[in-house]
């Protein structure tokens, strides 16, 4: 026997011993593993539930904090007050930021889903493997390159000495200040969110039977009508999921408004961050956080009620 064969043999034997050991341990356990099947399910999901409970418990903690009294030295004192909630009504700066956040997010959501749809459609429907690979590459490079790196890339593209101004300069158009404009923020958000939208749309589009599209065409529908009356309605679960994910990610974004907004176009997240680390006003930050969560949940809830959970739910086979 060669050394390699012997080694392989030894490994196989070790694996069998290990497996036998495990089985004998299992058989000696005081519990009957076949009988506890149902309760075993709860044991399986327990770690996952425990992990998420950090956020659930934290939400409760935020509600509690929102009623505590802010103190500039102690951060907060354990004295209950409604002052933080009243402040929410009186802080016009926050109303401005909040309105901007929602407005931009709405624009970006519509734009992202509109741009992602044709992309997702081609990813699913193209019959050229190379083209599909190119599209997937364009999808995953940004997805796997974090938001900070991409915002930085846009700074180089849109900056005063950036690529775009260099290109404009060669045709004689003077430097344009893009950073700090709504355009820069929206472009940055679009590029950040399109991959998420495509990932939400593809399962829905993939589940549309392509024979239906062919049938529509055979019946005389042109490409637009096929899209309008066959593809679009059937892709609705994907559109629902994409809308939810894109809107919630957009309205909670911090880095793109911060870096591409030039410090003047901050979103709600930037406002919250400044309250946490600028003035250390934890109680008021907690109020703002609760409002953010409430808006996001309300949006999700309304869309779910109206259009169903789309492709978002963890699918469970019905038995």
């Amino acid at each position, binding site marked *: 026997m060669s050394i390699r064969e012997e080694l392989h043999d030894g490994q196989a034997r070790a694996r069998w011993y290990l497996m036998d050991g495990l089985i004998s341990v299992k058989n000696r356990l005081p519990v009957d593993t076949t009988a506890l099947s149902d309760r075993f399910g709860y044991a399986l999901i327990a770690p996952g539930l425990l992990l998420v409970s950090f956020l659930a418990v934290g939400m409760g903690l935020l509600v509690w904090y929102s009623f505590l009294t802010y103190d500039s030295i102690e951060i907060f004192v354990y004295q209950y007050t409604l002052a933080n909630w009243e402040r929410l009504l009186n802080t016009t700066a926050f109303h401005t930021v909040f309105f901007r956040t929602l407005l931009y997010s709405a624009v970006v959501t519509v734009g992202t889903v509109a741009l992602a749809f044709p992309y997702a459609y081609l990813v699913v429907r193209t019959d050229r493997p190379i083209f599909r690979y190119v599209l997937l590459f364009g999808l995953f490079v940004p997805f796997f390159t974090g938001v900070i790196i991409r915002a930085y890339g846009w700074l180089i593209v849109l900056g005063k000495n950036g690529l775009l101004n260099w290109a404009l300069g060669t045709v004689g158009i003077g430097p344009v200040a893009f950073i700090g404009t709504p355009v820069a923020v929206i472009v940055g958000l679009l590029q950040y969110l399109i991959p998420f939208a495509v990932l939400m749309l593809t399962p829905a589009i993939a589940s549309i039977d392509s024979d239906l599209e062919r049938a529509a065409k055979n019946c005389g529908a042109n490409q637009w009508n096929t899209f309008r009356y066959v593809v679009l309605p059937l892709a609705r679960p994907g559109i629902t999921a994409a809308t939810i994910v894109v809107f919630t990610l957009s309205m909670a974004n911090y880095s793109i408004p911060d870096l591409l907004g030039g410090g003047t176009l901050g979103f709600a997240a930037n406002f919250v961050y400044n309250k946490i680390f600028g003035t250390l006003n934890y109680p008021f930050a907690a109020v703002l956080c609760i409002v953010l969560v409430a808006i996001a949940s309300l949006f999700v809830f309304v869309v779910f009620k109206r259009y169903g959970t789309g492709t978002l739910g*963890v699918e469970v086979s019905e038995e």
Partner: protein
Amino acid sequence: MTGLVRRVGGDHPYLTAFALFEFAFLILPSLIILIVSLGSNQIITFPPTELSLKWYASLLEQSQYVDPFVNSVVVATFCTIIAIPIGVMTALGLNRYDIRFEHGVQIYLLLPFTVPLVVSGFILLILFGRIGWIGDLWAVGLALTIINIPFMIWSVASSVNAFDPTLEDAAQSLGAEEIQTFRYVTLPALMPGVISGALLMFMLALNEFIVSLIITTTVTETLPVAIYGAIRGNISPQIAAVASVYVVIAVAAIVVADRLVGLERFLHS
């Protein structure tokens, strides 16, 4: 041109042209970082006058980037390692067993998605602060697992859904023990979901920014936080060299993902 587009895109020439335009839009920021990082001037110039690798060479001597990079890798590894068993268990538990309030459990598990990241960061800052975990690197990893765990659960769940449970019955009727069935039948069938989920968790943790910004200290600072701090100062080509490490890792991850499970796999999770 239309001929070329037609050859690439099949029967959707205009759609194809549009998608290629979008491809350029999506890839532009990453590409520009790579190009700029190869310039040799102190400030960023277009087009780069001469190519050099000097910014990359200068990085290795600077602990301001090396330490956060190591931190990021440790955090992402920790996050991936604990997410794998939790994802597999949760997906199996939800799919195979009668769980009461199953719908409610699913909505509960979506909490990391519905809570905005800046809020999650604040929550974890308060909670970890109270427990005394701020300043521990593993706690950063735990935080990133908490906010990204739905990706892992979905990814494995899609494999569980596609798996035919009668294969397990077959194995057991052939005399396989429960553990053996799990090890040699169930687990291999779940592998594509586990691999794609693990890769997602690793990449998301490596890149995560806002939660890390909130809960890291100077000791536990991760690379995106360090880069953010540097960009606010200036946009030198040296930062482009640091940032391009991410672009290279992203491309490598795509190649690995394509080899291991196929990129299409990620579209089903």
